[in-house]
């Protein structure tokens, strides 16, 4: 029972008054920036980095970690309430969370998101404690070929995200892929579709796209329905019903599993997690037609997945010293400021740090629920604010949030453009979710495809010779068959005619 000893030792560290305090500060700040759309954990961590010079390593890292997962947590709030994804990982939560809110189930959606996240956080914490070393080896097995195959699977899966026409969903994925190519091509250094605008040299920001297509477009659509939302302001009971719990629990379990695995993969794993969980949930659901109209599973699964993924993305960092995403890279910076070089030796040389951080994640998750559950009532009151007052405030939050990413006013203007695009899509019955996924995956897919080809010296067999890559490709083919098989399509179309 070495694990148990380690966990007890870890709790001894993370439950010291000082560490609890910093965990609380981190969770609070994280929730705050999560709720504010656009303002992400990256910028906040960077700003707090100098402050950590003056803290001992353990509380400093506990606080920074708290901000990170707190932000994942808070991001769902605005997604559910106003269709504005506070964090990139909560885009999917918009799809059904916002619909739940419109059906008067905002409180239930927020509560499910919170409880699902807590459960996912608990499982992921245990997983980190038990299975870090084997999981980190998995991360090292994922090279260019595997990533490419994973992206292919993700793209095939993204079509499932849509509820309307299959062809239109595919076209939207293509459009997303194309938009994702804007910027400097990593392999050749050439700029593509930038129109010689230097601000486009690094591509279009994900938040810009998501905020425009979801947040702004929703405002346009709402405004033309006048004060229709008055009718929506019926606020049902705040707590989920028994039936909602019954449907949410298996969804949370599946979301946690998917999120825990994908989170370990460096490079967008955690982001993919929420999309994958949603698509999977829709696939296994007996009534997929409910998705997009306020299905509680559509909130529970992605929320569990993104929290689990946020947690397990610490695995490569803590065990290998390899940062899986920019936030983790900053954490490495924070560790190095403290004179700790991240890597496999951390676990043995600095057990109080390793186990302290891990157990603090659980403490932090618990705190988040304690902070957030009572706040649900308050958040829901927000929906009672007349829309004519609410939407200018959302506009402002959105504009400041986008600006804070790169301190670029150009990106605010670009967001407006994507808002217009989103409105056109809305009018034409084209759904933005597949586009967003294509947009995320596009550059990664191309980069890894070309890298894999470069490394294999032009031998495309590399994708089927490597076992993990082969399995992923086979899964993609299977899913594709499932999607295009006539019988399936028929039921699908029937489902959407209801």
């Amino acid at each position, binding site marked *: 029972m070495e694990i148990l000893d380690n966990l007890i030792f870890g709790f001894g560290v993370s439950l010291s008054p000082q560490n609890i305090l910093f965990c609380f500060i981190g969770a609070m700040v994280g929730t705050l920036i999560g709720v*504010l759309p656009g303002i992400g954990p990256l910028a906040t961590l960077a700003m707090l980095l100098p402050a950590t010079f003056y803290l001992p390593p353990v509380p400093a890292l506990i606080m920074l970690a708290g901000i990170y997962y707190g932000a994942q947590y808070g991001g769902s709030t605005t997604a559910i309430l106003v269709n504005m994804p506070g964090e990139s990982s909560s885009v999917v939560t918009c799809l059904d969370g916002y619909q739940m809110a419109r059906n008067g189930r905002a409180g239930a959606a927020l509560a499910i998101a919170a409880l699902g996240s807590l459960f996912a956080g608990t499982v992921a914490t245990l997983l980190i404690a038990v299975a870090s070393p084997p999981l980190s080896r998995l991360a090292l097995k994922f090279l260019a070929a595997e990533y490419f195959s994973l992206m292919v699977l993700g793209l095939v899966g993204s079509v499932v995200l849509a509820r309307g026409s299959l062809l239109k969903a595919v076209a939207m994925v293509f*459009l997303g892929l194309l938009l994702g190519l804007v910027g400097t091509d990593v392999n050749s250094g050439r700029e*593509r579709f930038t129109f010689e605008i230097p601000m486009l040299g690094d591509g279009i920001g994900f938040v810009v796209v998501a905020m425009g297509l979801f947040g702004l477009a929703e405002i346009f659509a709402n405004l033309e329905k006048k004060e229709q939302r008055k009718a929506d302001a019926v606020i049902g009971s705040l707590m989920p019903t028994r039936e909602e719990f019954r449907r949410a629990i298996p969804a949370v379990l599946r979301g946690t599993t998917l999120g825990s695995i994908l989170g370990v993969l460096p490079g967008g794993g955690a982001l993919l997690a929420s999309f994958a969980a949603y698509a999977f949930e829709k696939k296994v659901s007996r009534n997929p037609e409910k998705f997009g109209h306020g299905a509680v599973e559509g909130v529970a699964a992605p929320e569990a997945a993104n929290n689990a993924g946020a947690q397990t993305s610490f695995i490569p960092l803590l065990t290998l010293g390899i940062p899986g995403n920019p936030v983790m890279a900053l954490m490495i910076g924070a560790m190095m400021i403290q004179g700790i070089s991240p890597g496999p030796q951390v676990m043995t040389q600095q057990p109080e740090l390793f186990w302290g951080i891990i157990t603090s994640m659980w403490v932090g998750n618990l705190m988040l629920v304690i902070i957030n559950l009572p706040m649900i009532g308050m958040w829901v009151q927000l929906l009672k604010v007349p829309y004519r007052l609410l939407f*200018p405030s959302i506009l402002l939050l959105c504009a400041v949030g986008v600006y804070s990413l790169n301190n670029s006013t150009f990106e605010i*203007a670009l967001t407006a453009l994507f808002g217009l695009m989103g409105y056109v899509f809305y009018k*034409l019955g084209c759904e933005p979710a597949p586009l967003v996924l294509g947009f995320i995956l*596009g550059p990664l897919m191309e980069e890894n495809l070309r890298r894999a080809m470069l490394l294999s010296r032009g031998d495309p067999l590399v994708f089927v010779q490597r076992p993990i890559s082969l399995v992923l490709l086979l899964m993609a083919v299977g899913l594709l068959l499932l999607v295009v098989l006539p019988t399936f399509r028929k039921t699908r179309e029937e489902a959407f005619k209801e």
Partner: protein
Amino acid sequence: MRRGFRINQDFVSGLMFVGWGVAGLWVGRDYPVGSALRMGAGYMPRLLCWGLVLLGIVIAIKGAMVAGERIERWHWRPLLVVSAAVLAFAFLLEPGGLLVAILAIVVIGALGGPEFRLHEALILAAGLAVGAVAIFVYGLKLPLPIWPVWLV
């Protein structure tokens, strides 16, 4: 069952996808394509654009053949006014500072909404300005200018 040609959602979306594809092909006409084994910067864009053109044509044809959903009426006012509000914020933020930009986005934005009342918009702008300065500038220490450049 010939119903003749009808403008519907699918037909127009098909044309839109064709438009994206063609535009992409034109903008990216100079990007080196390379070969499947040694792809150039233009390989993926070209592949995707042709895919869009093809998908668009199919969607448009299918759309023109069946009576799909009609496109609802466009509401230009909220669309243009609210976009203008966001753009105003973008252009005013750095020269004019946060306060001026907030005034613009809130008041212009509210114009695009139902039941515009000037005094209400002004009060809202003032309230949001206080909140934004407190949270963003003092709380999160975002590098946002509060006052116009020529004042500091």
